[in-house]
């Protein structure tokens, strides 16, 4: 009887992948090399992690080798397009959702509905009825972080926020630091002031609106009226100020949590951006994530190997490991209920912020919007342009930029 049971179990374990159907990849017959381009860099240890994953996976499957290459986000997009043109594209991409727009428009990636069971994952990039990406991590959203040495509890409204920041700004100490000139840091507040970059159709820019005007006025006031931010601060300055304890609060994304935990230890506090006092709404940072994209030209003999690698990286074990090591929220639904999140106040804060976030548009037009907002935002924050002028110019630039794409 025991033997029969064992036999049955063995049979079941062998049969399981077959029964599960076309989703599962099968071991390739000959040696296969997958080239993977990833946007993960080594600064936060993410690239090392990806390389370790690739090595583990290659060790488990003797016929498959995964070659990892890091490219900075913008370079990844440019070089992938060039490589696709020459027919030398990589076999798999690990990148951000912004790339879905250009890649689908140009026909460079293929739907992943046949590769994985998309229902296992958090919301992904869906366009024209197909799913175009497999989520690796979700979130990628901005949130409010503070140093407990100066702030015991995160402010709940913008009025409180300003008061707290003002009281902490003195000498070489700032109440708040963030990347002043970058549209991604403006986006949450636009949501909080009840605005959105696109009209309901999802492609017509709506930047010349009272919401955008109020957003710019608010951000401007933080620097000019209340003086709580550094005069000029890009990402690196804000990041360093916060790590060195020279900024009490910072607005930054989930990717930075790991580094701050290391720098501040138990003094790190994470939560939602404060409710906008005048509208009573929470700022809505863009949520997106990190995704696998499958190139359209993937050779047939590599398909199953690519499938297996995707399955491996998005398995519950690896997803939980990512959560622990990199403090990023998983893309696999079942891993989202991990006790690691429940037990970690920082991760809980991150989830709380994500709940009020808004999915970042993945359409090609978004690119033109980013490029339209950035220079005007810089000009307003430099004091060389009024918010009123800026919103007009932004809208014009976005409309021009979109027209140019066609």
């Amino acid at each position: 009887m025991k033997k029969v049971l064992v036999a049955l179990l063995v049979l079941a374990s062998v049969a399981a992948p077959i029964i599960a159907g076309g989703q599962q990849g099968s071991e390739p017959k000959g040696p296969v090399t997958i080239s993977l381009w990833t946007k993960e860099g080594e600064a936060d240890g993410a690239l090392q992690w990806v390389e370790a994953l690739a090595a583990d996976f290659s060790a488990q499957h003797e016929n498959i080798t995964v070659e990892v290459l890091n490219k900075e986000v913008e370079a990844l997009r440019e070089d992938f397009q060039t490589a696709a043109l020459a027919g030398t594209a990589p076999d798999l991409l690990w990148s951000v959702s912004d790339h879905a727009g250009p890649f689908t428009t140009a026909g460079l990636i293929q739907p992943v509905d046949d590769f994985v069971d998309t229902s296992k994952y958090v919301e992904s990039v869906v366009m024209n009825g197909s799913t175009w990406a497999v989520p690796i991590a979700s979130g990628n959203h901005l949130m409010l972080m503070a140093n407990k040495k100066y702030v015991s509890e995160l402010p709940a409204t913008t009025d409180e926020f300003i008061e707290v920041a003002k009281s902490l700004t003195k000498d070489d100490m700032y109440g708040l630091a963030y990347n002043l000139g970058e549209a991604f840091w403006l986006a949450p507040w636009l949501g909080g002031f009840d605005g959105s970059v696109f009209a309901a159709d999802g492609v017509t820019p709506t930047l010349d609106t009272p919401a955008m005007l109020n957003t710019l006025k608010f951000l401007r006031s933080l620097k000019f009226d209340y003086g709580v931010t550094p005069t000029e601060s890009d990402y690196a300055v804000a990041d360093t100020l916060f790590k060195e304890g020279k900024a009490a609060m910072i607005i930054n994304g989930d990717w930075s949590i790991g580094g701050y935990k290391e720098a501040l230890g138990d003094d790190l506090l994470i939560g939602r951006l404060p409710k906008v006092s005048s509208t009573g709404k929470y700022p809505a940072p863009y949520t997106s994530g990190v995704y696998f994209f499958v190139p359209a030209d993937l050779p047939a003999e590599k398909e199953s190997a690519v499938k297996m690698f995707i399955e491996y990286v998005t398995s519950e074990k690896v997803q939980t490991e990512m959560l622990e090591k990199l403090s990023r929220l998983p893309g696999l639904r079942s891993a989202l209920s991990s006790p690691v999140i429940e037990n970690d106040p920082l991760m809980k804060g991150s989830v709380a912020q994500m709940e009020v976030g808004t999915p970042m548009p993945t359409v090609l037009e978004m690119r033109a919007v980013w490029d339209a907002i950035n220079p005007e935002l810089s000009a307003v924050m430099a004091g060389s342009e009024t918010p009123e002028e800026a919103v007009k110019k932004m809208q014009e630039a976005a409309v021009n930029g979109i027209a140019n794409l066609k």
Partner: protein
Amino acid sequence: MNSQVVLTALGQVSGTVFWMLVGFLLIEVSIWAVGNKVLKNKNTLVAMLVTPAFVGLGLLLVFPLLYEVVLAFSNMNLYHFRNPEFSLLNGLENFKRVFTKPVLQTTTFFPVLLRTFLWTSQVLIHASVGMLLAMLLNRPNLKFKNIYRAILILPWAMPQVISALTWRSEFNFEYGFPNILLNKIGLPGIQWKADALWNFIAMVLTNVWLGIPFMMVISLGGLQSISDEFYEAADMDGASGWTKFQKITLPLMKPVLAPSVMLGIIWTFNNFNIPYFINEMKLESSEILVTALFRAAFNFSQYGFSAAFALIIFALLFSMTLIYVKWTGALKGVTD
């Protein structure tokens, strides 16, 4: 880093050298056979000497140029990426767009052109400061001359990307040294990154720092080749320093300076690294033609349009250079 890497590299590179030599010989022998034996042409040796380099240049530079010409007559962009259409109409549309619509999001062609001219005119600063430093270095019996010279050419010797990134971080509002120095003497700091005008000035400052050494070295070479007899004769006539500079130094330096200034103009006009790294493609108000081209092609993926744009930039620089050559006779010493 292990022995395998070392061997692969050596193997590949020696293979390349070997095959290039074989190709080189093949070309040489066939030209020799055809030119000397069949045609009995007296220029066979010349052909043998110049062909390898020009075959290489043809492949590497002429092919891309032709490719761009073809591309300029297409509608290739992200919407027509895999199957662009090529037609005369598309070409006309692309060329027209360069002058009639924004080349990026807001900036149109002519303001960028004007800014590029302004940017290129800094070569005058390179040349005059370079000349001044060369004249100081060329004083008789100057002590520490070699030390001064070694230090002064450092910006030229440093890898450009490293200098550009260093300057970029030094233009930080709070932690860069220009602003710290300004604060020390009681002046407010400058917003080098966000303010359009100062951003442009930051680019120019960086490039002036980089461009002076070349001109200084060239001028020094020129000054050393001027015979002392001219100055001795002038001294006898009681000429003032200024007169000597005007009547002797400048005219005799012209054959040296004119071609160098021309190269300086071409390089500055086409300088990509400095505007790209200092501005970080943030402010359209700091773009010059070549960086705008890069953005149109790679950020906005407008392949067809940017091919037309590139050809216009190339044609513009080419005709400017020809005019300069005619005007200064910069190539006289070269074509003689």
